[in-house]
């Protein structure tokens, strides 16, 4: 016991988790994580490995060699890998990408191979082979072949269409062009012709075709800006910088053509932010890192042109290496369906075995003495029984529905199209329809229990707009006119007086404009001046247009607001900022830039005005600012009140302040500043300390309020989903306050909610763990599982937990890794045993803890996890998946959600502000969060109901069809004689009974979409698996069995002693077959008619059409002409016309159909009268509902009035561009602009966008 405690405490010993930091970066790839598994390594291997390591001491991984401008270098024999016998291929992939699977020649064999890998298809292939053996063949060869060909054909066509689309896509991408040095000059070549070692030129807005080492660019210091939206979803720009040496010498075309550098680097891998290598050039070597690498998939921005050396091409690029693993998702119903098919298969084998035994017995008793059955072979009865076993496997094979899988696929495909076509999930503003990217998961949408949602861009629009401000204790931003009168009418402010206004800001407070323009209150102008000067935004002026590049959208919003209010930030150099103040351009000297970081939560700038004053401007979170204010601030309280008001309106707030610094004080401080910035160790801490010294005694100017706009309809959607008993967890990288605020804004949290934080749960979990241990003791394993709730029942609880707490609670710690590494090679057997033992105990402990956590979290109505990494997001999803066995859905829009989207059962991507990464890896995508309710409550629910109806009916109809053979075998000596004509068996599943049920699977609606949305509780049938489970499955089978009995025994009774109207052949086999088959076709088609709750003309047409088709085909196949042509294939000549002439047979058919269907009608009627389901009730009253006026949506509850819940932040949690600005690298004069190239570049960019 004690030892166990010890091992745990080593992990728990860490200090309290920090709520602010994201726990650790996600840099380790999955491969790396897998490697951690403590492998038990044989001694010999270890020795060998060590020897190897000694021989190649360092840099053994740098085996990738690239030589610039030398294509032949890469074709040397040592770079060739043998791929196929003697065919050799270079290990350097060329840049043509290939995502397609087949080409014209390989399509048929490969596609067939793929298809026969599926168990169902393989099963029918085996059957086909069995049927070819004459001794056991009991059905004509075409009975299985025709449906199988149909099934294979449909799937093949679908695959073909998919592959053609992929071919087209590949071709489009491979034929994009770029410029590469060839024969000493830049020439335009297609992407697919680009090779490793080529020197390439890229222009502004070009997509990068391969992974490239940046050599030089048009910008100073060969800086190059890239947008990495496709890779990580972040829209802000990143900069890359080349080596000094290449920057200096490789600007001209001739120099680039002569470049003969040699790069040695690591082999291609999937780590986007890692690169190690060396450039050898002119007899010296230069280290390379990921800052010098431009990755395929990014876009060049703000850089006229740049040059690079291709290091990885095509399949070797990081983006392609990353796209490798796509997990194949399957639905719950898929698994269930498979198990059911296995069940049926077992039933099939048991039935066949039973009938085979029956046959052996019959042969011994009767067959052996029947002289007319002599077949020339003296087989023993048991051998005949054995042959008959296989015979019955063939005859009864239709119990396993051959067209089940393909029909399911067709239905899902159709449902996916309905999702794509849905106008109510189409977002006209972006011209984005919803898209089902995976077509195999639809019915799972009707079974969701947990939704994991990202915040930014998913719940919110990720557009920050300046909404309100508080200047000098006065709140501006409400709707009022110039003379401070409140107006109910929204009247937009006119910014036309300001030449720099961008015309996009909507503002309704005319009084503020009045104040600015009149200049009555100097603080108002000072306020906006601060916004214009204190930031790290970069400006880009083209054609007189001003474009801002901000590290965070908040900052961009503030600078843009200042610009609209007359204080336009125009330009910056390393140490100046130019601002147009109400039309007058003034340039300020920037003396110091005190950048933002997540500890400081503020940023400052120290400038010297043209008049010579030194001033410090600072903006930051209110908590930090208030600590540093001068005690004599008159507006402190008013501003505090204003901040509370803003926070209650869920606005993101920020405090602004300034102070004057006298010359001496500054000079003294500046010395310290310079010293700190030159410090070699702990520079950041030193700088922070210095910053702290100057940022004090500040004078408060006011506060800003930015709206992080919620998307439309988010609260409604969330409350509706909550009513459907779906639990919503918000997982976000944002800070706790932000997340909490958003939780209130979208009504996930309400006034009544009790919020539990990390500390609270940790305490709860600790107690629980202790209890479990104490109670368990030695008999821990036998102790009953405790399910008592963590909280007293009742009351609305929410959980807000940060990533660090999550790690703490779930015992997921970095320290553990080193421990494991230490454990790796235990020396003795004893040691190894002890270690595995303790490890096992740790694992068990961790598992219990995780389970407890999930149990606890699931008791809360809402869970918000903030400050979590993408990996943690996925982990949380995985935990719920694992311990709750519930269906999960993850929704997000950015690259940081990809992990979670891929982990959840269903991933939904919002095609919104950020890049396409989330969408690319999602199963469904649409433009607005609010469409989720329609996707789940309407499409998901319908899909689930349809699929369940379809499956229940499908199993039923096949049992009703097949088991007639079983009953018949008691009357034909168990001889595997079929009840039906072979052609009927062939076509039953394909033609006579498939279309109506397919249409039900595609079109059925129990209640309309409006009612589905209005009564979210209807959704619960899917969550509880009520419509399709083993019970329903066995009921369907039982129904099928009964139907087959009725369909067989009623004609049997009628036939036993009878004769035709005209005395002719009264009870022959063929007439019997036709009678049973006709009754069957009519019964199953009417049955699906009964199951159909939404009768369109198509349904009616298909049901009666199927019956008509049956009779039509039967009369054709029983006609004289076809028999003369194929006497052995069509033996039933004349049966249909002769048999169906008898009123007696019609009466038999009517009776059989009626006896099959009437009890069902009666039962359903009784069920509906006595125990009506939710949907029955709604259906019954639908006219009433229709008459009622539209449901009034609940009033939003915004007011909370608890000031402590204020959020104060306006920075994203990454550093700004301050470093870059201070170093001055980006701000020198540009080199000669390549106007022509730019023009061409933009044109090309336009083309790419248009196409």
């Amino acid at each position, binding site marked *: 016991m004690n030892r166990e405690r010890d091992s745990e405490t080593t992990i728990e010993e860490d200090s309290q988790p920090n709520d602010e930091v994201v726990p650790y970066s996600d840099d380790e790839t999955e491969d790396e994580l897998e490697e951690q598994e403590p492998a038990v390594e044989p001694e010999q291997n270890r020795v060998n490995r060590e020897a190897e390591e000694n021989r190649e001491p360092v840099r053994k991984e740098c085996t990738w060699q690239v030589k610039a401008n030398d294509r032949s270098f890469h074709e040397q024999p040592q770079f060739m890998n043998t791929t196929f016998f003697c065919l050799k291929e270079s290990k350097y992939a060329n840049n043509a990408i290939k995502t397609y699977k087949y080409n014209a020649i390989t399509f048929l064999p490969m596609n067939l191979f793929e298809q026969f890998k599926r168990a169902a298809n393989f099963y029918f292939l085996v059957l086909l082979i069995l049927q070819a053996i004459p001794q056991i063949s*009991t059905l004509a060869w075409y009975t299985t072949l025709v449906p199988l060909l149909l099934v294979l054909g449909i799937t093949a066509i679908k695959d073909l269409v998919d592959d053609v689309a992929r071919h087209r896509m590949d071709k489009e991408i491979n034929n994009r062009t770029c410029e590469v040095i060839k024969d000493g000059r830049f020439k335009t070549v297609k992407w697919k012709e680009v090779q490793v070692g080529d020197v390439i030129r890229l222009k502004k807005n070009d997509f990068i075709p391969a992974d490239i080492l940046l050599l030089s660019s048009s910008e100073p210091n060969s800086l190059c800006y890239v947008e990495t939206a496709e890779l990580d979803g972040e829209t802000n720009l990143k900069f890359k910088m080349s080596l000094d040496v290449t920057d200096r010498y490789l600007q001209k075309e001739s120099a680039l053509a002569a470049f003969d550098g040699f790069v040695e680097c690591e082999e291609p891998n999937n780590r986007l932010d890692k690169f190690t290598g060396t450039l050898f050039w002119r007899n010296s070597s230069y280290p390379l890192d990921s800052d010098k690498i431009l990755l395929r998939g990014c876009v060049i921005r703000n850089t006229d042109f740049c040059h690079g050396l291709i290091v990885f091409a095509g399949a070797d690029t990081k983006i392609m290496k990353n796209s490798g693993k796509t997990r194949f998702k399957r639905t719950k119903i898929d698994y269930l369906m498979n198990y059911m098919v296995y069940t049926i298969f077992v039933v099939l084998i048991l039935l066949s075995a039973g009938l085979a035994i029956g046959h052996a017995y019959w042969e011994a008793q*009767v067959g052996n*003495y*029947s*002289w*007319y*059955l*002599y*077949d020339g072979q003296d087989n023993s009865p048991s051998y005949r029984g054995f042959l008959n076993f296989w015979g019955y496997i063939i005859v009864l094979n239709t119990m396993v529905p051959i067209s089940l899988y393909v029909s399911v696929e067709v239905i899902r495909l159709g449902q996916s*199209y*309905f999702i794509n076509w*849905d*106008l109510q999930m*189409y977002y006209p503003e972006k011209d984005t329809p919803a898209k089902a990217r995976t077509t195999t998961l639809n019915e799972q949408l009707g079974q969701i229990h947990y939704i994991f949602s990202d915040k930014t861009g998913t719940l919110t629009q990720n557009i920050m707009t300046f909404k309100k401000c508080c200047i000098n204790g006065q709140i501006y931003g409400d709707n009022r006119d110039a003379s401070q009168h409140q107006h109910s009418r929204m009247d937009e402010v006119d910014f036309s007086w300001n030449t720099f206004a961008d015309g996009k800001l909507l503002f309704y407070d005319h009084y503020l404009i009045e104040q600015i323009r009149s200049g009555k209150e100097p603080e108002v102008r000072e306020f906006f001046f601060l916004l214009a000067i204190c930031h790290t935004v970069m400006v880009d002026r083209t054609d007189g247009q001003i474009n801002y590049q901000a590290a965070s959208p908040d900052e961009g919003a503030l600078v843009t607001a200042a610009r609209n209010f007359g204080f336009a930030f125009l330009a910056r150099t390393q140490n100046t900022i130019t601002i147009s103040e109400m039309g007058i351009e003034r340039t300020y000297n920037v003396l110091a830039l005190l950048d933002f970081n997540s500890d400081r939560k503020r940023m400052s700038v120290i400038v010297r005005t043209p008049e010579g004053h030194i001033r410090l401007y600072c903006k930051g979170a209110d908590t930090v600012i208030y600590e540093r204010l001068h005690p004599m601030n008159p507006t402190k309280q008013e501003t505090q009140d204003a901040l509370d008001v803003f926070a209650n309106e869920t606005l993101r707030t920020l405090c602004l302040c300034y102070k004057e610094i006298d010359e001496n004080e500054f000079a003294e401080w500046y010395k310290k500043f310079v010293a700190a910035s030159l410090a070699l160790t702990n520079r950041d801490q030193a700088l922070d300390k210095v910053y702290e010294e100057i940022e004090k005694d500040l004078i408060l100017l006011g506060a800003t309020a930015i709206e992080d706009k919620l998307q439309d309809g988010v609260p409604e959607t969330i409350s509706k989903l909550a009513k459907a008993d779906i639990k919503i967890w918000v997982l976000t990288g944002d800070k706790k306050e932000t997340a909490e605020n958003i939780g209130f804004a979208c009504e996930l949290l309400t006034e009544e909610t009790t919020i539990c934080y990390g500390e609270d749960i940790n305490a709860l979990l600790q107690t629980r763990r202790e209890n479990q241990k104490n109670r368990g003791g030695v008999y821990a394993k036998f102790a009953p599982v405790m399910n008592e709730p963590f909280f007293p029942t009742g009351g609305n609880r929410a959980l807000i937990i940060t990533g660090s707490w999550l790690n703490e609670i779930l015992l997921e710690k970095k320290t553990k890794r080193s421990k494991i590494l230490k454990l790796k090679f235990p020396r003795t057997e004893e040691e190894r045993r002890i270690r595995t033992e303790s490890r096992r105990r740790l694992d068990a402990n961790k598992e219990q803890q995780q389970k407890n956590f999930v149990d606890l979290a699931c008791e809360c109505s809402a869970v918000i996890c903030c400050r979590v990494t993408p990996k943690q997001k996925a982990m949380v999803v995985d935990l719920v998946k694992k311990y709750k066995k519930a269906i999960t859905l993850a929704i997000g829009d950015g690259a940081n959600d990809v992990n979670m989207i891929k982990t959840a059962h269903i991933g939904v991507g919002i095609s919104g502000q950020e890049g396409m990464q989330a969408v690319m890896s999602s199963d469904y995508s649409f433009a607005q969060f609010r469409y989720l309710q329609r996707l789940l409550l309407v499409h998901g629910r319908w899909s689930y109901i349809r699929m369940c109806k379809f499956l229940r009916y499908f199993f039923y109809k096949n049992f009703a069809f097949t088991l007639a053979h079983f009953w018949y075998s008691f*009357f*034909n*000596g168990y*001889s*595997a004689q079929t009840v039906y004509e072979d052609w009927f068996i062939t076509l039953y599943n394909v033609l006579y009974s498939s279309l109506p049920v397919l249409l039900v699977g595609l079109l059925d*609606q129990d209640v309309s979409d409006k009612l589905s949305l209005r009564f979210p509780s209807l959704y619960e049938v899917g969550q509880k698996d009520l419509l399709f489970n083993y019970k329903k499955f066995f009921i369907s089978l039982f129904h099928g069995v009964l139907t087959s009995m009725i369909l067989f025994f009623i004609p049997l009774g*009628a*036939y*036993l002693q*009878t*004769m*035709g*109207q*005209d*005395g002719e*052949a009264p009870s022959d*086999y063929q007439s*019997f077959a036709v009678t049973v088959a006709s009754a069957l076709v009519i019964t199953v088609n009417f049955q699906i008619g009964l199951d*159909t*709750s*939404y009768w*369109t*003309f198509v*349904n009616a047409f298909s049901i009666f059409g199927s019956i008509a088709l049956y009779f039509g085909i039967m009369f054709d196949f029983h006609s004289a002409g076809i*028999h*003369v042509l194929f*006497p*052995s294939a069509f*033996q039933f000549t*004349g049966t249909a016309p*002769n048999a169906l002439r008898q*009123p*007696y047979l019609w*009466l*038999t058919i009517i*009776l059989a159909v*009626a*006896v099959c269907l*009437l009890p069902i009608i*009666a039962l359903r*009627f*009784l069920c*509906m*009268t006595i125990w009506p389901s939710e949907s029955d009730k709604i*259906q*019954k009253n639908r006219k009433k509902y229709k008459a009622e006026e539209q449901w009034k949506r609940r009033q939003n509850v915004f007011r909370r009035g608890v000031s402590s819940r204020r959020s104060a932040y306006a920075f994203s949690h990454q550093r700004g561009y301050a470093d870059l600005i201070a170093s001055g690298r980006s701000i020198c004069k540009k080199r000669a602009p390549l106007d022509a190239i730019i023009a061409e570049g933009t044109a090309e960019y336009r083309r790419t966008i248009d196409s």
Partner: protein
Amino acid sequence: MERNSNDVRGLLSRMPDNTAFKQQRLPAWRSHLTAWAVLPGFFTTGAFFLGMGILLILSAKSVKEIEITYTSMCSNCAKLRENASNFYKECTCSVPFFIPEKMPGNVYMYYKLHNFYQNLRRYTISRNNRQLLGEDITNVENCAPFQRDSNGIPIAPCGAIANSMFNDTILLSYYPHSSTRINVPLLSSGITWWTDKHIKFQNPRSNNLPSAFTGTTKPPYWRKPVYQLDPENPENNGFLNNDFIVWMRVAALPTFKKLYRRIHRTGPFANGLPAGNYSFDIAYNFPVTVFKGEKGVVLSTVTWSGGSNLFLGIAYLTTGAVMWLAAFSMTAVHLKMKKRNIVSES
């Protein structure tokens, strides 16, 4: 299904079509099992079933039928046939019987076999339809084990079904007085389906039937070759022989009867068979006791609904009755629930 980007709607080019089908708004009737549909439906169909049941029972009762199983009556012949060596020995047997009531109208004569598995799979497939079409008389594919005799000559008609053809001959005699005996005229025509007689079974083209079958031999269990089945009537000889055609249409169940003859309605039998004494004169050739089978003869009249099978009538009657019962109880339940709903609502 993808829309063109140069759609006329320009900017909203990817907007889905607003059609009833794509928006799942197809006009439809929402089926719902309401009391107003179900209860009257049950009552009326119940009434229909009851009426139909009574009608069927009445008509089945009106059928006059006589069935005589003669295996035990001709036990000496049956014994004789158990030994294959007596194959060519003749054995006849006379079975007297009495018809208590007149059998009016058309009277049909059937032979009936018990425990004879004509529906056994390997038996039913042992035939060759192409040979029976008369096109290729030597085609004996699928006819195992009766394809060729020991000399390799193809058998016509080949296969197990043909080989085991029922070959008893049954004659019917009427005794108006104890001394007089009138042979009841029997017709062997009109006992097959038109399609069988005119399409499925055709003699090979030849002006002389025996020569048409040259190169083939008779099935091993037959006494005479196929072209001698009815030498007097070319329309009833060879593959066109009615008894042969009837036999080849295999029965669905191991107990079956097959139409053998029709009573020719002439002379005293113009209105059917009068009541009185009759006898069957049977040439007993077909062995059945070996496999515990039985043979019988059936004389029957028919009505619109066929023969004297009460099953269907009774089944209809019961179904109708159960439906009414169900309808009554459903009405009761419905009214009770309705009352409860009203109470709970108020």
